[in-house]
């Protein structure tokens, strides 16, 4: 089941640079468990608790087994577990957990990428809005920051419209942006 549902939220779109800028961690991994449970402190709040077997920390330091909690706002999201499912292969751009230990993908659906293999075996990533607007305005922002990327990544940034993008190039770009952020 693809990663998708993220409640009824209305969100403004952000490009990849802004999503990474806003995030604390970016991790690639497999969903090992998904549990819906009441929040320990906040009465009436249900959370989806996702445990990820991390393959790679793309930004920040993420342990091999990483568990996070996300608030469930709409009762029908309880059944769908916010679109998370065991066995999903994901790249998650997550904001910093708040004082209640709650986090979300940056930009909601925009920061949750499902990873799939193309017919040639190469992995591609698609977020919950089919990567719509993911690179919008990014090229000029990268130039303004003096960030250099490989020709392949540059091609992805300037040519991609909508739909899956190569995972390795996406991660390469995230690392570059994160490194530029850390030098701020």
């Amino acid at each position, binding site marked *: 089941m693809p990663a998708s549902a993220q409640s*009824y939220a209305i969100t403004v779109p952000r490009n990849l640079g802004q999503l990474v800028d806003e995030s604390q961690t970016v991790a690639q991994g497999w969903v090992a468990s998904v549990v819906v449970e009441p929040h320990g402190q906040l009465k009436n709040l249900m959370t989806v608790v996702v445990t990820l077997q991390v393959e790679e920390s793309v930004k920040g330091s993420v342990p091999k087994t990483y568990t996070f909690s996300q608030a469930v706002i709409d009762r029908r999201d309880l059944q769908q577990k916010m679109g998370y499912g065991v066995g999903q292969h994901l790249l998650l751009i997550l904001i910093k957990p708040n004082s209640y230990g709650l986090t979300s993908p940056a930009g909601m659906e925009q*920061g949750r990428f499902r990873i799939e293999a193309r017919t040639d075996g190469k992995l591609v990533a698609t977020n919950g809005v089919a990567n719509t607007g993911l690179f919008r305005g990014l090229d000029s922002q990268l130039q303004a920051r003096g960030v250099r990327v490989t020709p392949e990544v540059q091609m992805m940034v300037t040519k991609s419209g909508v739909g899956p993008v190569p995972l390795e190039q996406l991660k390469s770009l995230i690392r570059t942006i994160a490194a530029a952020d850390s030098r701020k």
Partner: protein
Amino acid sequence: MRKRREKLALWRRSAAAILSFLLLQAHVAFAGGPLVVGGPAQGISGVPLVWDNTNPVMYRADSGPLSQQPNGGAVVITNAQGVARVQSMFGNWAAVPTANLKINSAGGLLAVGSFPANGDVKTVTDFLTVAGDITGQAPDPNSCNGGGQSPIMFDADGTIFDGLGLPPEVIGFAFQCAFNPTTGKIISAGAILNGRFQDGINNPNANNFELTAAEFDQAFTHEFGHFLGLGHSQINVDVLLNAINTGAPNCSLDDDAGMPLMFPVLGLCTAKTTAGLPILAVDDAAWISKLYPVSSPPPAGKTSFNAAYGTIGGTVFFSDGVTPAQGVNVIARNVNLPRRNAASVVSGYLFTGNPGQTVTCVNPAMPTAQTCSNLGDPFGSHDPALIGHFEIPLPPGTYTLQVESVFAGFAGGSSVGSLDPPIPAPGTYSSAATVSVTAGATTTFNITLQGTQPRFDAFESASLLAPYLQPIWLRREQIIRERQTT
């Protein structure tokens, strides 16, 4: 150092500049048309979940300001202004002459637990108290999930959104709380508006974004469409596709006028009211009227639905002309101003997006959620006759029909139609044939897609799905003959 700051500022300014459209996400959408359709044990199977409109839909509003600057700063939008805007947003829907809807404020919020009557929802605890137990197991009867009230809450400075661990891009959400599982009538729903987007501060450095009042109100009028039971619609999607390809939306006045308010992405075009257009497109008015039709004779100030609308209905088929095709967006465009005068629906909109199965249950004869891996979506009909079926309410006139894929990005909360994620349309359809719509009548028009892949392999036949008009032994002989000739 200064140069770096300038670069960072440019980055941030650019960030603000691309906030030109909003992603409107409504989970479990069955659209265009209804948001949720009843299933075998949830409401009435195949019937959209709607409010009981024999009485006005009543909501209750927060008593605090709609928007306030951070850290207890100046109030930017007072409570009275906020309540007036909410009433105006709901009023857009109630004003549709063919929709039998009255939507009224019942006053301030009811007391729920420690939350006082007529209180101001200021904290995440307040919000959760008023919303109530989301599991529905032991909700306070005055809460939204207890069916006691339909709260419209103002998070004046975004504190509640932060407390829920939501990212700063979220400007609000609507949520359904309670419905009657027997009648399928909605009992309560709620919404929360993030006033941080109206606080007059556009500071992306601090994750504080700003929308114009027209954009903000258009977004929540859309959300209130969900509150009333409407799902998403897709018309003039080429505006979005062009924006993706070129980096800049190119939206004519006709494009803007015809793009439904319930389109999943808002802001591709100028806000409708800013452009001098009605906030509701033809599609929005048609579908809210279909869900809440004014009967005849109409009350004063209203028009009977049957006097003002007819219907084009039929089934979308694969090229074999037998197998129904699910998840194809069907648009009817009037021959006059086709970009403006259009309404749509996704084929199979009343059928469930996930029928599930019991074959792999531990005990298929006794399926339970605990012993089965996929019991399917409890919502949406499981009647196979509704696969590929479509109905489009339309004002009388002459129309052409267009068929297209639901945009691949309309998944999850942005879904259009019952398939999530959407599928590419399995074939194409191009016809200049016109269809006449007469008030009060349904015109049947089936669509057979061109160029679809064979639905069956060489050893099967689409005739297996044909209505069983012959005795089984004759059908078996016919199938054998077909196989012998292939």
